[in-house]
């Protein structure tokens, strides 16, 4: 738990952080709006007092109410992992800026978040599906994705009758959507 890091972050980014930096075990967490992502991450990457050069992970999260993009960073200046949560993406058409200008390796990570959640990253030159076939229409890791219904809706040409064994259920989304305050 690196209190000094929390103070430095709050001092530098002040108003851009939604709430204080939270810390638990060896992680420090800050929340920002999606539109602030390029500025904050560039500051964290380039400024020598932060020096978060290594992007450990880029994940999409569907909390049931909003979508988030979560970045994990490591720096030699701090013993903590830094978690940057870009919060508040709407669930219908989530868009976030891309960080491929800092880390070219984030291209595929953003492709994966797009494929699984439908989050469009503006600035990513190659935003297409990575695991699912290119003509797939659903986003599997969203909380309103129900596998049996998706299989029942799929074309299933010719011999693949197994995928049409049941008709899509019409359970309203609210009842089976899991939510978390995260």
């Amino acid at each position: 738990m690196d209190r000094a890091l929390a103070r430095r972050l709050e001092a530098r980014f002040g108003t851009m952080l939604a709430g204080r930096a939270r810390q638990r075990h060896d992680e420090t967490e800050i929340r920002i709006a999606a539109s602030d992502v390029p500025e904050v991450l560039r500051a964290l990457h380039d400024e020598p007092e932060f020096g978060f050069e290594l992007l450990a992970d880029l994940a999409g999260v569907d909390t049931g109410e909003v979508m988030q993009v979560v970045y994990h960073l490591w720096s030699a200046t701090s013993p903590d992992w830094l978690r940057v949560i870009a919060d508040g993406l709407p669930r219908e058409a989530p868009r976030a800026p891309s960080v491929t200008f800092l880390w070219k390796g984030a291209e595929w990570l953003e492709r994966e978040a797009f494929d699984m959640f439908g989050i469009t990253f503006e600035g990513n030159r190659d935003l297409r599906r990575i695991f699912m076939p290119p003509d797939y229409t659903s986003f599997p890791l969203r909380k309103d994705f129900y596998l049996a219904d998706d299989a029942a809706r799929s074309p299933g040409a010719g011999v693949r009758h197994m995928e049409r064994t049941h008709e899509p259920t019409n359970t309203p989304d609210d009842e089976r959507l899991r939510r978390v305050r995260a």
Partner: protein
Amino acid sequence: MKTDTRHASADDPRVFLDEQVGIFEQIPPYPPQTEREAEFYTLRDGEMFINIGPHHPSTHGVLRVIMKIDGENVVDLDPVLGYLHRGVEKLCENADFHHTIAYMDPLEYVASLFCEWPAVMAYEKLLDVEVPRRAEYVRVLTGELNRISSHALAMGFHALDLGGLTPILYSFIERDEIVELLASITGQRMLFNYYRIGGVNGDLNHDFMSRLGTWMSRAATHIEANTGLLNENEIFVRRNRGLGAMDSQTALRMCWTGPNLRATGVPFDIRRAHPYSVYPELDFDVPTRSEGDALARYLIRIDEIKQSLRIIDQCLHEMPDGPITAKLPRLLRPRPGRAFASVEGPRGEYAIYAVSDGTDQPFRFRIHDPSFLHLQSFNLLMEGRLIADWMAINASLDPIMGGVDK
């Protein structure tokens, strides 16, 4: 389903297809969706597409790479993933915490313990559980054994992809002995399912200790003998030296970790940079080389095997007595919150980001795999190279598709 324009398949007349499969199929069979796709799928004069995989002896799993070649020169390439995508992250969202550990094993199946480790570490953070010291030592011991077996396999397959039929069988002697060792305590030769939240699933036994002692006494000489087959082999060295050279800044931008990053000169090892478990008490070096080519990556793996042997030695000498699991309630309800845990696996940083909503199932279980990012760099490494070089680069980067595709 369209029922009026169905064609009998040429292979089996009982099967009807909606579109007639022609011999000359477009690659890809749909218009390009992104700029990169458009750039890749336009052919200049003399270029052609060739498909490596997914069914291929050297792709280390089911990896498909569409290469644009001009004779033997590779102009561009586009890896296509997803042939082993099993939806593990979604499965884990509907499973208990204990079940998710078993789901983690088949991700990097040659280094399964390193896949379970960050999962149990993340849960321990969410549950605020402290792991007993003996359990930590057992985790480190078995983890380092798994690292040696994974590196031995990687070296063997590196040679096999280049045409040498013999070194793989020599490295599999070591690997076989190690998986037998681990089978005597975990019950499984490969997907171990050994780590538990708060400890491990069973103490070391006499069979394990005696076999480990026997193996350790000859492991070092065996490794020397095996590497002697390849290190001075002129053909092997010429195929690998200077191949796929990456410099450290580019490697950091491509989010590389593990031996591949250390081969480019960046001495980043999570066991030293962000220590976990009992690694702060253990004495080992972090081998680093600066050339960044395939030969450096191969040599670093050999050095890491030697360091792992040192760590195992220290673990055996310093292992304390005590319980091997923490006392936990049967039904686990972690606090609602988020936890991130990361370990240094044989291929790089293996990490889990777990979001818990207070129930006994994780809400979001994000798996971060290092090979995913290594595969992204093929374009950079294959500038002006031949098809045969792709095999060598792929083998030296050592991806495991189970983790890449989740």
